[in-house]
């Protein structure tokens, strides 16, 4: 006699640390096999886009800090680049260099959180502490620069709020020297750990065609084997002056585009970011960082979609200007929002425990998902 079975609906979240914020996943199960996953988002929704319409252009910057709060510098970068394109202004070279240094440091900080919490999700506690220890050093560099550790308001339209601290260059060089061996240590501790690879290899494989169709970008797209990085493929600022590689997923321990690949791409990217920082620190020109800041920011009527490579993927700003002091419409295309949309596709057919492994590997921040 066949046993009677029926589908079970399991709610994961909204409060659970491994959901990386307030997110509810409605999981339909057949035994322990996942039939479908429906993310329910919006718990942190504050309608940033409505706020932005009531602000002047510079006043929006502190709000964009709060989108992906682990990568505030990069968020500001995207916004100021978009407004500068609307205004048609050039910024001094020193500003460009400092922006690149800051956003690459922030990329490392964001990846360290991604890697550390990913290990934590899977059950490895120690790497989490090591990653956060290293991230603290980056936050101290930011604190030295602008006084804030998390939300900076440092990039302004046309320039920066302050110049660097006189000690910054030396401290940043020390940091680069300090981090390199630690990445190796991380590889010994987590990357090649048997328990970790068993949990992540061949799990949540994202084929390239699906990835592009779902709008996946950044490390997650590169993990699926596509060499696509906006710093090289749609260059902005001065990224074309630096020599760095774009790592792609190789399927070293499993299949191309599995959770392990998505994890390992971030480790490799940290090394590339260190290379960029080193070059930028060596070439850093002198100059005034506030000279190009316009007194009144009033772009001509028009619209622009401008995008930058955030640690998590393509961050796009679609700004419509009606010629007044306030933006008419600001739409943010956040990578986390887009990446969460592919959860259902990735989880189908896997076990319940893999949901956490998959969610951690796509690295989302709910502040950006919900905006």
């Amino acid at each position, binding site marked *: 006699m066949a046993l009677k079975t029926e589908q079970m609906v399991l709610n994961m979240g909204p409060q659970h640390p491994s959901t990386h914020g307030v997110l509810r996943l409605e999981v339909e199960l057949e035994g322990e096999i996942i039939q479908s996953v429906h993310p329910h988002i919006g718990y942190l929704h504050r309608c940033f886009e409505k706020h932005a319409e009531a602000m002047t252009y510079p006043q929006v910057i502190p709000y964009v800090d709060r989108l992906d709060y682990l990568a505030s510098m990069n968020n500001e970068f995207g916004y100021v680049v978009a407004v500068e394109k609307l205004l048609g202004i050039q910024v001094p070279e020193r500003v460009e260099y400092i922006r690149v240094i800051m956003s690459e440091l922030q990329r490392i900080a964001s990846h360290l959180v991604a890697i550390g919490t990913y290990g934590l999700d899977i059950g490895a506690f120690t790497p989490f502490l090591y990653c956060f220890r290293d991230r603290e050093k980056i936050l101290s560099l930011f604190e030295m620069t602008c006084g804030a550790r998390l939300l900076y308001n440092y990039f302004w339209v046309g320039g920066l709020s302050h110049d660097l601290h006189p000690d910054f260059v030396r401290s940043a060089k020390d940091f680069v020297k300090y981090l390199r061996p630690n990445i190796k240590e991380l590889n010994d501790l987590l990357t090649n750990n048997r328990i970790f690879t068993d949990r992540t290899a061949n799990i949540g494989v994202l084929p390239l065609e699906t990835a592009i169709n779902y*709008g996946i970008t950044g490390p997650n797209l590169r993990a699926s084997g596509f060499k696509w990085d906006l710093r090289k493929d749609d260059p902005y600022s001065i990224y074309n002056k630096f020599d760095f590689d774009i790592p792609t997923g190789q399927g070293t321990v499993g299949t191309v585009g599995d959770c392990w690949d998505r994890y390992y791409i971030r480790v490799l990217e940290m090394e590339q970011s260190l290379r960029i920082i080193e070059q930028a620190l060596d070439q850093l020109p002198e100059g005034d960082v506030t000279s190009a800041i316009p007194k009144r920011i009033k772009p001509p009527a028009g619209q622009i979609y401008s*995008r930058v490579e955030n640690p998590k993927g393509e961050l796009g700003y679609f700004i419509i200007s009606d010629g007044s002091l306030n933006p008419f*419409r600001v739409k943010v295309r956040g990578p986390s929002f887009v990446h969460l*949309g592919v959860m259902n596709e990735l989880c189908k057919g896997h076990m319940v425990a893999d949901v956490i492994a998959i969610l951690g590997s796509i690295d989302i921040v709910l502040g950006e998902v919900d905006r």
Partner: protein
Amino acid sequence: MKTPEEIFNILKEKFGDAIIELVSSQPVESFITVNPQEIDKVCRFLFDNDELSFDSLMNLSGVDDANGKKTTDQNGDNIIEGGTLSVYYHIESTKHRHKLVLKASAQRENPEIKSVESIWRHADWHEREAYDLVGIIFLNHPNLTRILMPYDWEAGHPLRKDYKNPEFYHGMKVPY
């Protein structure tokens, strides 16, 4: 790699009146306006055609153009009548490395636009967001529900320019 002008000519030849115009001037990105009832066919062509192969949707944004008749009622609240709501599609080809912006506008009173979800799955959540925040109805969308606002939100669509903050939420007074 093709310029927006070349793509416009290809589309005009293929679809005729469904392609309305090419708007281009600095610093505006040039965009092509398309009939909202034909947008799915146009996008399918852009996706399938080998010379164009727009395989990636970068962004989809709903916008309240606020170009209707604006009045103010006795409470000082804005009211907009007529005009359009628009959707901007930013698409690109990872193969040919060209980009394109499409725009489809629908009447504010009946904001219906064909969904492109079946072409780029990416559009699924963006269309839900545009429905949620701007109130655009996407025809043929498989699950057009609110996404960021609560599912039972009754006070309309917040990114409309005449949106009014609700005083009550389910009968409870909101203190602010």
